[in-house]
């Protein structure tokens, strides 16, 4: 009896063949998912300051009732010397360790920390808030939306 010719386009529907294909397809799907995850992580890394949240002045009035906020001024030292939020400590990346000493002295565990810089366009408050959390493991750190400008413009 002549052997049956095999159609190259035919699909093998035998048990072991189906199993092998299923494994191969699962492997390909897994590989695609891993590649997608790597690409996503590469182009969209989680923000390093994920735990430092922006806060508005209005929120500070409602969220910290009865708590003594530790204000951190991240503006240049000359601006801080001229005027700052009462009780604020100066902490800038211009002279990080110098400012840290003053921060540590004023800080107490559990006290909310709000960092501000000049205005909405400055990024110093976010950087300082991020470093406080990353380097000192301090929690409850926020950066003020609108910074010093919003403080000055708030009617009192």
């Amino acid at each position, binding site marked *: 009896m002549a052997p049956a010719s095999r159609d190259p386009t035919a699909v093998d529907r035998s048990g072991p063949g189906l199993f092998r294909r299923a494994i191969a397809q699962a492997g390909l799907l897994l590989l695609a998912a891993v590649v997608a995850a790597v690409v996503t992580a590469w182009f969209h890394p989680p923000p390093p300051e994920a735990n430092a949240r922006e806060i508005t002045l209005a929120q500070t009035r409602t969220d910290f009732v009865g708590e003594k906020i530790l204000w951190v001024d991240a503006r240049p030292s000359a601006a801080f010397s001229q005027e700052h939020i009462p009780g604020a400590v100066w902490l800038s*990346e211009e*002279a*990080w*360790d110098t400012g*840290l*000493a003053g921060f540590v002295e004023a800080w*107490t565990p559990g006290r909310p920390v709000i960092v501000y810089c000049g205005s909405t366009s400055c*990024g110093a408050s976010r950087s300082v808030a991020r470093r406080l959390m990353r*380097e*000192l493991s301090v929690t409850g750190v926020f950066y003020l939306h609108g910074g010093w400008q919003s403080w000055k413009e708030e009617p009192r």
Partner: protein
Amino acid sequence: MALSASSAAAAAPLVWEQTDRSVVATPGQETATVVYAFHNASDHPVQITSINTGCVCTSAELAKDSYAPGEKGELKIQFTLGDRVGRQERLIHLATNDPASPTVMVRLVVDIPELAVVRPRLLFWKVGDALESKTAEIVLTQPEHSEVLEPKSTSAAFTAKLTAGARPGLYRLEITPTSTAETVHGVVHLPAVFHGKSRTLSVFVAVK
């Protein structure tokens, strides 16, 4: 014809060789200076009316404000590193008197390597806590060019002990308070040498 005339009118008059620049700071570097070259590709003079660097840490310098057709210019940006570490991005906004392109933005990214990673930099005990040691980890990122020396505490209320870790450049700084009866602050200084230059690392300690 009308389309190409419109395109020409909308084209930016100042053509920049590069608007995005990235540099890596070397150990001990204090400022990063980068020059952005441009030329006026239009048929009329263009004036740069203002430059906003967004930070006192970043200065901008132009030899002149107004550029004739075809004239070349250079914008020099100087970024003062201060105590910053990691990736620093600065966006510099220029305003011109040209209605087709009233604003121009150039970007500077400076990567500042952290020669020593100390975590955490604050160790604290609550008043009344047990006299237990707490530890900060020190990682020298370029151990072949760095070393740390014996720690010194600014306060007698804390003792400090430095031990080398399992691999080169890894250290553990163990700090113990002598009393937690009352509030006290201090700093443990770690003299260090990076690429032949002395620097002091600090760990802040407190009983609160």
